C-alpha cells in the first residue's frame, strides 16, 4: 500500500533519513518506533507531502505522491501538537474541515464517544490540552479512509478517553484499514501493534512482529527489548 524507495532527507547538515526503504502492506496496525530525533515524524510528514525528500520516491496505492495533493483525500492524519485557531469554536472547526474534504463524515458518534457536547460552542483557545487532543481525534477519525496516521495519539488523554481511542483503532483495523502509529508508550504498542518498524540513524533497523523482536533481543519485555535496540546506538 505504501512504499518508500531510497528516501534521503537532510535539514541543513543534519541527515535525518539516509536511504530509507520501507514497504507497508494493506491492513493492520504498524507502530513506528525509534529514539528521539530518529526521523519518525519526518518519515510520516514526507508521506503527507509536508516534507519534501531530497532524493527517492514514495508510492501510495502504487502512485507517486511527490508534488501531488489529491491522494490526501484517502488518508487521515493526527498531528502531534494540536494547536487550533483560538477564535473558532469547536463545532466551527469541525464544519470547516468537513467543508474542505469532499467526503462523508460521522463526527456525531465521535463527539458523543469523547463527551465533547458541552464544549461544542466553546472557543478552541479556552480548551485544555486533553480536550484539544480529543477534538483532534474527532477530526482524524470522522472520515472513512484507507490509511490512518497517528502521531503520538495518547498525549494528554485521560484513561477513559484512552480506552475509547484503543477501541476506535481496533474497530478501524477490523474494517481492514492500515494504521500507522508513532508513540513512546510501549504498553500501548504491546497491546495494539501487529508489526513494529524501528528507525535508527535514518534507516529501518528492524521490521517485524513483536514476538520476532522479543526473540531477536532475547527479552520478554517489549520495553526492555526496545531499550536494548536503542542502547546499541549509544554503544
Amino acid at each position: 500500500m505504501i512504499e518508500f524507495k531510497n528516501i534521503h532527507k537532510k535539514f541543513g547538515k543534519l541527515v535525518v533519513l539516509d536511504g530509507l526503504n520501507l514497504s507497508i502492506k494493506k491492513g493492520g496496525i504498524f507502530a513506528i518506533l525509534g529514539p528521539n530525533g530518529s526521523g519518525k515524524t519526518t518519515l510520516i510528514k514526507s508521506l503527507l507531502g509536508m516534507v519534501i525528500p531530497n532524493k527517492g520516491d514514495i508510492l501510495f496505492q502504487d502512485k507517486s505522491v511527490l508534488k501531488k495533493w489529491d491522494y490526501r483525500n484517502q488518508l487521515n492524519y493526527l498531528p502531534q501538537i494540536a494547536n487550533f485557531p483560538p477564535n473558532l469554536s469547536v463545532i466551527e472547526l469541525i464544519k470547516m474541515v468537513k467543508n474542505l474534504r469532499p467526503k462523508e463524515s460521522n463526527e456525531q458518534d465521535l463527539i458523543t464517544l469523547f463527551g465533547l457536547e458541552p464544549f461544542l460552542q466553546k472557543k478552541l483557545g479556552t480548551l485544555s490540552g486533553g480536550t484539544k487532543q480529543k477534538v483532534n481525534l474527532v477530526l482524524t477519525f470522522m472520515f472513512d479512509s484507507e490509511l490512518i496516521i497517528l502521531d503520538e495519539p495518547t498525549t494528554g488523554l485521560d484513561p477513559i478517553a484512552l480506552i475509547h481511542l484503543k477501541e476506535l483503532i481496533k474497530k478501524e483495523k477490523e474494517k481492514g484499514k492500515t494504521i500507522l502509529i508513532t508513540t513512546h508508550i510501549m504498553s500501548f504498542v504491546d497491546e495494539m501493534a501487529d508489526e513494529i518498524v524501528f528507525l535508527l540513524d535514518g534507516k529501518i533497523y528492524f521490521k517485524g512482529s513483536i514476538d520476532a523482536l522479543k526473540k531477536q533481543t532475547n527479552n520478554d519485555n517489549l520495553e526492555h527489548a526496545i531499550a536494548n535496540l536503542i542502547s546499541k546506538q549509544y554503544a
Partner: protein
Amino acid sequence: MLKILKYSFFDLMRSRWSYVYFIFYLALGFVLLFLNNDLNKAVITLMNIIIVLTPLIGTIFGVMYYYNSKEFTELLLAQPIKRNTIFMGQYVGIALSLTLSLVLGLGIPFVLYGLFRSTAIFDFSLLLVVGSFLNFIFVALSYNIALSTDNKIKGFGYAILMWLFLAVIYDGIFLISLLLFNDYPLDKFSLIATMLNPIDLSRILILLKLDISALLGYTGAVFRSFFGTSLGMVVSLLLLSLWVILPVFRMNRKLRKKDF
C-alpha cells in the same frame, strides 16, 4: 482557495485587533473631520498617517498570523488541498480584512461628513486605493519573510527592519544622496528612486493630486509633469501592482521546496 480565504477572513474579523484597528481609523476620521473642517487638509494628514501606518500594521499582522497559525496550517497541509491554495487563501484573507478595516474605518466618517457632495472625493478614493495597495504589498512582503525564517523572533525582527528600511531609512539615504550630488541634474534619479519604494511612490502619487505640489520646486515640476498625467498615474498603479505580484510570485516559488 475561497474556502481558506473565507475562513482566514472571518477568523481575523473576529479577532480583537481588527476591531482596534477599525476603531482607530474611525476615531481618526471623526477627529480630523470635525476638528479640522477642511477636507483637503484632513486628506493630507490622513495620507501622512496611512502611508506609515498601513505598511507597519500589514507587516505585523502578516508575520503574526503566519507564526500563530503555524500548527493549524500544518493541519490544513495534511488535507487534500494544494499548498499554494492554502497560503494564497491566508494571504488574501489577511490583506482583505485589513483593507476592510481601513476602508470602513475612514469611509464612514467621511460619508457622514458629506463626502459625496465635496470635490475631494477623488483624492479621498485615491487615498483608499493607495492604502489598500500598501496593505496587499506589505502583507505579501511579510509573508515572504515569515516563509523564509522558521525562527519567530528572527522573522519578526526582519519584518520590522524591512518596514523601517522602506518607511524611514530609504528616505534618509535618498535625501543624503540628493545633498551629496547636488551639482548634478537629479530629476531623473529622484524620479526613479521614488518609484522603487512603494511608500514613497504612494506619497508622491497623493501629494501631486493635491494642490500643494507647487511647493516642491523644480523637481516638483518634473514630478508633476510625470505623475500628474494619466500616463504617470497608470505607470504608478502598475508599479504598485508589480510590488504585489513579485512577492506573491516568490511566495509560490518558495512554497514548492519548503518543509513543514
